[in-house]
């Protein structure tokens, strides 16, 4: 079977610091990582390949430096990596991103064999919209399975797949046809360490690098800023509340009592509510 996994290279948010005075993001030296949610998709794909045979192709759209994340994916055991990179893609919102990625998946299918499953993560840790998976599915006419917690069964010959999907208030057990697109839920597996052989292979592997033209993008006006219906108009710092916080003095002998007194002074009704809650009503 052929599986395509879409991964995004993102700044390691755990290491992002906000400048205390200017309130701007200090990006210098912030390392980039594979979007953590995408590793669950990658592991699910690798496990299916191990079980059924075939190949896993990882795909990312990003700047040339995103090649690092693709190489990392190869060390985990992916078979092939494709980098979609072009200045035309800069400033893409999710609609423009899915246009580019869907085009690249189509090209991957023509070049290396039609995919049976396309995987994405649940969402990213930077844009965080969870819109890219459904967008790719719609553009490729693939059946869409989002928030998948478990892939119960894949019947390659019968072209069908059964999954458990997280929904509001429970789990749906779904069956659908291949090919399909799956967005994988977090904490559903653990990415393997990667074999030594894969690490060596990854270091020497040739990453396939495609421009918009190479990938078969026909309409540049659907890419990047120009192809994005959403426009970020204003970026601003949140304002402080008009009224300053009342500060309780810690040097008082009983600061806890002072704090409670201040809370109930401001909202007398709260004391009754709390007493009722505390009694378990």
């Amino acid at each position: 079977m052929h599986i395509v996994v879409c991964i995004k290279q993102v700044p390691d948010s755990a290491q992002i610091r906000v400048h205390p005075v200017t309130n701007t993001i200090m990006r210098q030296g912030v390392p980039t990582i594979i979007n953590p949610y995408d590793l669950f998709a990658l592991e699910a794909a690798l496990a299916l390949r191990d079980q059924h045979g075939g190949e896993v192709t990882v795909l990312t759209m990003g700047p040339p430096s995103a090649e690092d994340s693709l190489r990392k994916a190869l060390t985990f055991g992916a078979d092939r990596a494709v980098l979609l990179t072009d200045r035309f893609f800069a400033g893409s919102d999710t609609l423009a991103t899915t246009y580019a990625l869907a085009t690249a998946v189509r090209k991957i299918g023509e070049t290396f064999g039609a995919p049976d499953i396309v995987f994405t993560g649940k969402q990213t840790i930077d844009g965080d919209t969870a819109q890219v998976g459904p967008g790719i599915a719609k553009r490729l006419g693939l059946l869409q399975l989002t928030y998948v917690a478990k892939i119960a069964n894949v019947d390659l010959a019968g072209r069908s797949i059964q999954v458990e999907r997280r929904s509001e208030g429970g789990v749906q057990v779904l069956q659908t046809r291949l090919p399909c697109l799956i967005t994988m839920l977090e904490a559903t597996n653990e990415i393997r360490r990667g074999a030594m052989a894969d690490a060596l292979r990854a270091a020497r592997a040739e990453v396939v690098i495609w421009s918009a033209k190479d990938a078969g993008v026909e309409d540049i006006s659907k890419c990047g800023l120009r192809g994005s219906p959403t426009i970020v108009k204003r970026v601003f710092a949140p304002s402080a509340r008009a009224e300053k916080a009342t500060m309780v003095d810690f040097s008082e002998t009983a600061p806890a009592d002072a704090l409670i007194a201040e809370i109930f002074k401001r909202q007398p009704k709260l004391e009754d509510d709390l007493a009722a809650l505390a009694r378990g009503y």
Partner: protein
Amino acid sequence: TKKELPEHFKAYKHVWVFIEQERGQVHPVSWELMGAGRKLADKLKVELAAIVLGPDDEATQHAAAEAFSYGADLTYVVADPLLTDYRNEAYTKALTDVVNTYKPEILLLGATTLGRDLAGSVATTLLTGLTADCTELDVDADGSLAATRPTFGGSLLCTIYTLNYRPQMATVRPRVMPMPEREEKPIGRIITHPLGMVEDDIVTKILSFLPDRDSAKSNLAYADVVVAGGLGLGSPENFQLVRQLAGVLGAEYGCSRPLVQKGWVTSDRQIGQTGKTIRPKLYIAAGISGAIQHRVGVEGADMIVAINTDKNAPIFDFAHVGIVTDAIRLLPALTEAFRARLSPHSRDRIAS
């Protein structure tokens, strides 16, 4: 960047809210969005419509009727047995068809698992913009939807527009908007629309549904009182102090994101942009700095109390009551003081 709106989009008018039903229950986020939608519609001087999809049964009729009590001027209904359980194919077709037929200028959905699954498909089918997880919705002077959400990685917000495409779509997470007052209203205009599908058109089949056990769910989002801890607590052991205070208050406990990432607390307890949004009467935050992604999850609280050693911590910009001190020392004292104050014994004494 604003061009004259293309001619074929000029007919797009009115504000719509997608009413999400799950096994006969309307998700509360839908009514919260009706409140937000009402304000947008009034400002634009247009109508507010609810759009209800579901099986052809009493629950669907009831949801359509309820929409009027939450401010709808009219309601669109697609009622069909194929819409009994959520499936992307049928729901996407239903919603896209109704949008293409009746042309709303704004379409709002809840950012739930269902809403996100559906919104992404519908926006891509319609080739329009979709702004995710908004914390504020407004219309600007020329009538465009201004959708505000936090930007990644910094303590900043951004306002996103979909100027040249229609409808302008946005999702909002549960509890971000206040629940509007329900006002008993008679059933108004209802427009029904056919689904136009048979079961054989839908490839995906639902084999079964396994409901969550109630005990597995935390009630964090709907709790009246929430106590939360952050990295300032220093260790998972110290986090117990938060749980103890929550226990005395009959409160739910929560945390900032790094504690989930470190594995100190389970992810269903995370409060903020990528966790739960809460609107309690009282929120006590200990050792939490107040980053924007945390702030947007708690701003709806009636009273925010912050305990932090740094008097310049951003949380004091939006807290109502603050105390600059070591939470590890204050929390046990606070737990004891609340216990004493709230015990029936002490209340009898105060009453007499």
